[in-house]
């Protein structure tokens, strides 16, 4: 038994030190645990509400506007705003209305077809005005509303949020702690002891896994109980994926922080690394929107792998084999980043 004068093994002491630093920083606890839940709550409110979302349409005064207004108001969910031509352009630009109608024969629709809600508004408005002019419907379709848990947007977005948080807190908590210690010359002081460098990095990882339990647990419990998000697959597999993802992003965070001397420098590199993944890796919208040639690259990103795997398990009930490819991608990122970080790491 080694004499450590009452202290535990260095890995345990280093992990405890990191955990204490974290828990004694109330703001850090807020960002890691409560912020993801708040974000999920906001998205849940926005996207899980029953009833159809309203469509706002601008109407410019002109010949036949009373008749057009009457026709538009007869459509449930359509809200009509009377606007002057200048105000209408502004409202269109700001997204306050999805489309502007200038009555006349024929009437004119002004909208930006790139915006999805504008395209929707075009069909709703056109339908209402055509009918008012006497168009007959050939049939009345049967409508089945799909509101079962598991197929709503909020069900799709929760695994993405989970992945985004695992990335964000993983990279920030590690990168920040390392660069902070370096800028205060604490890393240099540690390098002057016989502390093993592998022990130091391992402790940062272990501490990271404890925070991970907090944040993933809080978000999953909230999603399950409040938003009624389903868990089609195994919770154990989701946890395993979360751990794998956390390790990959801890490695990436360590790599980004391996040489930076100041918090400002590391912040820039963190954003440089994370922002593309927020956009590309299917957090809030599917990565299928991006061109076909970019797909292999997008699929190789760690956040894409993590999000795809989490969705596969939570929504489709995939098993281990179903997410083996994603697991392999995350493992390669973990090993590669740590190996490289250990080589590049600057202790002073």
């Amino acid at each position, binding site marked *: 038994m080694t004499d450590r004068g009452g202290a535990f093994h260095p890995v345990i002491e280093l992990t405890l*030190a990191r955990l204490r630093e974290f828990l004694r920083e109330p703001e850090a606890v807020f960002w890691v645990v409560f912020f993801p839940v708040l974000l999920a709550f906001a998205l849940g409110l926005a996207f899980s509400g029953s009833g159809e979302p309203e469509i706002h349409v601008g109407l410019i005064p002109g010949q036949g506007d009373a008749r057009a207004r009457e026709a538009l108001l007869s459509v449930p969910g359509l809200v009509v705003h009377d606007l002057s031509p200048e105000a209408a352009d502004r409202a269109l630009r700001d997204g306050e209305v999805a489309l502007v109608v200038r009555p006349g024969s024929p009437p004119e629709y002004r909208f930006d077809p790139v915006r999805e809600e504008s395209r929707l508004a075009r069909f709703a408005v056109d339908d209402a005005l055509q009918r008012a002019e006497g168009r007959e419907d050939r049939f009345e379709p049967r409508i089945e509303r799909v509101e079962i848990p598991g197929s709503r947007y909020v069900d799709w977005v929760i695994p993405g949020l989970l992945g985004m948080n695992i990335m964000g807190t993983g990279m920030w908590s590690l990168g920040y702690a390392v660069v902070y210690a370096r800028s205060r010359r604490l890393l240099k002081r540690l390098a002057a002891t016989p502390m093993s460098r592998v022990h130091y990095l391992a402790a940062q990882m272990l501490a990271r896994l404890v925070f991970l339990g907090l944040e993933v647990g809080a978000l999953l419990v909230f999603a399950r109980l409040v938003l009624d998000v389903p868990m089609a697959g195994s919770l154990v597999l989701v946890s395993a994926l979360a751990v794998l993802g956390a390790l990959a992003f801890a490695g990436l965070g360590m790599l980004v922080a391996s040489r930076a001397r100041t918090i400002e420098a590391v912040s820039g590199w963190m954003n440089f690394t994370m922002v593309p993944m927020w956009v590309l890796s299917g957090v809030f919208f599917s990565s299928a929107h991006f061109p076909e040639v970019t797909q292999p690259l997008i699929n190789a990103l760690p956040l894409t792998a993590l999000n795809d795997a989490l969705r596969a398990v939570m929504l489709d009930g995939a098993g281990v084999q179903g997410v083996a490819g994603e697991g392999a991608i995350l493992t390669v990122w973990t090993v590669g980043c740590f190996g490289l970080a250990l080589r590049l790491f600057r202790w002073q």
Partner: protein
Amino acid sequence: MYTLCHNHEVIDAARLEPPPPAVACRGLQKRYGDVVAVAGLDLEVRRGECFGLLGPNGAGKTTTIEILEGLLAPDAGEVEVLGLRWGRHARALRQRLGIQLQETQLSEKLTVEETIRLFRSFYRRGPSVDEVIQLVELESKRGSRVGKLSGGQRQRLSVACALVNQPEVLFLDEPTTGLDPQSRRHFWDVLRAFRSRGGTVLLTTHYMDEAQSVCDRVGIVDQGRIIALDTPEALVRGLGEAGKTLEDVFVALTGRHLRDD
């Protein structure tokens, strides 16, 4: 250690050869770009002595001590600490040394006890965490966060972290800069207690009274070289009538012009 050894040849060899000096370096050189920080410096610190490196700002004291501590690689020259080299024996050597760096800020969120426990965990032997806390008289601050300590208390904690393994050689880089007279005197007491157990000290300082009261020998460093080396008393005596204190010696040797870092 030798008394436990049954190999008589080794015992004889140990008797014949004096133990290697605590610290020895020859022809040390280090430059940063165009700036020469250390320009061929030789030094030998004997076992059990307290050696002070004195010099104006920018003289190369910190670079020298960090090379000796194995934290910086010299451009040229040789370093031996306790007869061992940094390249091959770093891990073993670190177990036997105590190091205090200039301006290290320990983690503010940890308490005194937690910080000492952390540093103690890296070493295979030494006093207990409680004994270290007593040694630097921080018992009443044991549970206080580092961020709440005064300058003097932080410095004591920093010394405590360097003493957790009861080192054979203690390196201290400007240990008392910015401290009040009480804290400095307390620190000198801790140093004396350390030396009474046979420890060797190598420190850098700006304070001549400190060097005069705690150091057995001092080396005055200027422009990366040692320009004078002796006991404080001998240095003062050597100045004849003009010298009363080590400060007079220092100014006579390094000049009166201002130095910038």
